[in-house]
Every structure is written in C-alpha cells, then in structure tokens.
C-alpha cells in the first residue's frame, strides 16, 4: 500500500518535471543547497588540494590523498555515469558499481599527477552564481611564475548530499574530456565494458 502510493507519486513528479522544467529549478525543500553552502564546500575542496600540493609528500601518498578528496567531495556517480554516456544504459548494476569504482581511481591518478605542477601555488574561491539547476563556484589559481587561471566547480544536491559534479579549467570540463576519452577507450575495446573497467584500474 505504502509502496504503490510512493510509486504513483514518483510517476506524478517525473511527469511534472518532464512537462515543466521550471519545477526542476525550484528548491526541493529543506535540503535545498544554498549559494553559501556551495561556496563553503568548494572552499574546503581547494583548501584540501592546496594542502596536498604543498605537503612535500611522495607522489603515491599525494595520489592517495587526491583520491580520498575526490571521493569525499565529488559526486563520482554522476561524473562516471555522464562519462559513460549512453553505454551506462546497457550496463548491469554490478558493472555500474565496478565502473564507478575504477573510474574514481583513474581520475585521481590522472589529474592528481597534473596537480603536482602547481606545487607552491594556491587556489582561492572567488564567487558563486546559480546556473540552471546548480551552483557554479569560481576559484582562481595563484601559481608561481605562471598566469592565474580559472577553475569552476559545479555543485548540486543529490541524495541529500551536496557535492561537485564537474570541474572546469578555463572552461574545459573534466566530464566532457573524460566522456570523449572513455568513449574512445570503449570503442577501441569493441564496446567491451568489462575490459574497459579492468584497464581503467591501472590507467591514468
């Protein structure tokens, strides 16, 4: 009884969302994310990253810490699913879980290595604005001897947690880049998702 009423409510809400996208923009009650919360979340992320890049630790230690920050503050499910694109639809639940997990490590290694170039630098939150149904928090790097650049974190509430679901460096989105990359990797493996997952575990 309870079940059937929740199912019909779900159908009703989905129908509403499909017809009027305005509803999607409206705050979803008490859990709605505020600009202030989005901005503090990103402030925590950049403080963690700054602390890692200036820690003077070994690369493997830094990569481990990056992976933990990524898992804690990023919506890795959304990022991974978006990168898998339409191929996510034909994946089984266990494949999806395995993919998200392999993807987390791959991203942390691939981008964590690049963050090493920023040793001695700083990242500061500049401002936050609402874009569509999420918040875009802009940060700027202060690097030794190189021009500052802009890093945008896109933050949105999902399942009761406020997390960032994309990061853009000078307008280049991690998700869009990795969607292209994952798509090409899947193509070159003849669409074999299991092979992709096992290769991702050591890639990056």
């Amino acid at each position, binding site marked *: 009884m309870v079940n059937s009423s*929740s199912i019909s*409510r*779900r159908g009703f*809400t*989905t129908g509403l*969302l499909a017809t009027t*996208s305005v509803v*999607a923009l409206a705050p979803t009650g008490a859990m709605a994310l505020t600009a202030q919360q989005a901005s503090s979340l990103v402030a925590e992320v950049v403080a963690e990253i700054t602390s890692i890049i200036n820690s003077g630790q070994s690369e493997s230690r830094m990569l481990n810490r990056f992976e933990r920050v990524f898992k804690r503050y990023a919506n890795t*499910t*959304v990022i991974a*699913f*978006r990168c898998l694109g339409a191929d996510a639809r034909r994946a089984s639940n266990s494949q999806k879980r395995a993919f998200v997990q392999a993807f987390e490590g791959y991203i942390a290694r691939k981008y964590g290595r*690049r963050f090493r*170039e920023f040793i001695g630098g700083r990242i500061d939150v500049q401002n936050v604005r609402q*874009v*569509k*149904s*999420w918040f875009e928090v802009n940060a700027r790097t202060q690097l030794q*001897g*190189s021009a500052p650049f802009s890093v945008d974190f896109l933050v*949105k509430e*999902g*399942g009761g947690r406020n997390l960032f*679901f994309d990061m*853009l460096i*000078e*307008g*280049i*989105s991690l998700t*869009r*880049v990795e969607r*292209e*990359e994952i798509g*090409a*990797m899947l*193509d*070159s493996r003849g669409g074999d998702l299991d092979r992709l997952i096992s290769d991702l575990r050591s890639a990056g």
Partner: protein
Amino acid sequence: MKFFATLMAVGFLSACSQQGDGSGHRDPNEDVNRRTHAFNVAVDRNLYAPASNAYGKGLSRNTRRGIGRAASNFALPGRVVNNLLQLDLEGAARNSFRFLINSTLGFGGLGDPAGNDFGLEEETTDFGETLYKWGFGEGRYVELPFVGPSTERHTVGRVVDLFTNPLGYALDAPENLLSPTSQVLAKVGSRYEYAATIDALLYESEDSYAQARNLYLQQRRYELGVDVSVEETDEIDALFEELYGE
C-alpha cells in the same frame, strides 16, 4: 591579396549557419580533418616540439615571458579594431591604454606595467568573436594544417585578422617583421610552457583527433561566453532525477 581574403570570407560565411554554438560538434568532413590532424601531429613531433624544446632550454623563463608579452602587445591594436567592431567601447579603451602604457613604460611590451600597476588586463578578442557577436554561427569544425583546430567562423576570423591590425600598415620594413616574428616565437614558447598538457593530448589520449576537437570547441565557446547548451542541462537534470528523484 585583400580582395582574395574578402572573397574567401564571403564564401566561408555563407556556409556558416546561424545555428551551431552549443554542445557537440558538426564535423561532416571528419575524414579530411583526420588526415590533416595526422599531418599536424607529424609536424609537431618532428619540428614543432623539438624546436620549442630547444627554444625553452636556450632562453630563460623571463626572456620567453617577455617575448610572449611583446607579441601580445603587438596584437593589441588589432584587438582594439575588433573591440570597436563589436561596439565594446570599454574594451577598446582598456586595450588602447594598455597598448600605450606597455609600448612606452613597458619597453615595447616586454614588460607589463599596464597590468601590474594600472589593473589593465588584456581583453583578448579577434574577428572570429566579432562575427559571433554579429550573429554568425560557428559553422563546421575544421582542422587547419599547421594551425590546428578551428571552425569555419574562426577560420574566416583568422584570415581577416591578418589585415585588421593597424600596426601592419603603420610600420615599414624591417620593423614590420617584429610583430609576426614575435607571434611565431610566442607560439613556440607556449608549446614549451604547456608541453605536459599538449603531449598528453597529442600522444597519450586514446583518440587525439577527437580529443583535440573536443578541447578546442570547449575552450573557444568558453572564450566567446557561449551558454551551457539546453541538451547538456537536460542531460544533467535527467540523470539527477533518475538517481535521486523521489
């Protein structure tokens, strides 16, 4: 030459549709573009990368930066022309003052007192952006030999910009060689500066052609201030709804 450029511009522009700026890509000539890409990668591997490496190792970082700044400075009068064509009077004023200050106090643009002491950062723009502001669509994606990724609209912009810089008309030989020479050196310097990123793109990505196209289009749309596309917004909202919807 100018007549030729105009003809080319008109031909290309009629091909640029009014739609186009958004997400994804329009690349009906992918086969040709992929061949050009293979050529460009070979040029990079055999010529450009080694040359930039020698340049980077041979000159100090400060010297390279100075040359890069001088190249940007030489480009400023052309940017002012485009600011004006876009009716961006503030940008035109800022770039003009920047040019005056850096050409004098900054020793021909080698230094950047305008940015450091007057808060006049460079407002980059080009004729491709002017066309965007005028309402022309980005057109098809195209990879140009030696130059790299572009769109039809950006390609027209690049050709026209060969003629929009008043400095090109104001200077006589051999001073008129300063600007193009510095532009080439600045490009070589950038290849060295961003070597890790460019190497990763060209030599480590699974499909460097597709990734170069993807990166270029994202970067260019960001530069022009193109809004997030409706398709991408819908895709994000639909995924959140699917995962977390009540």
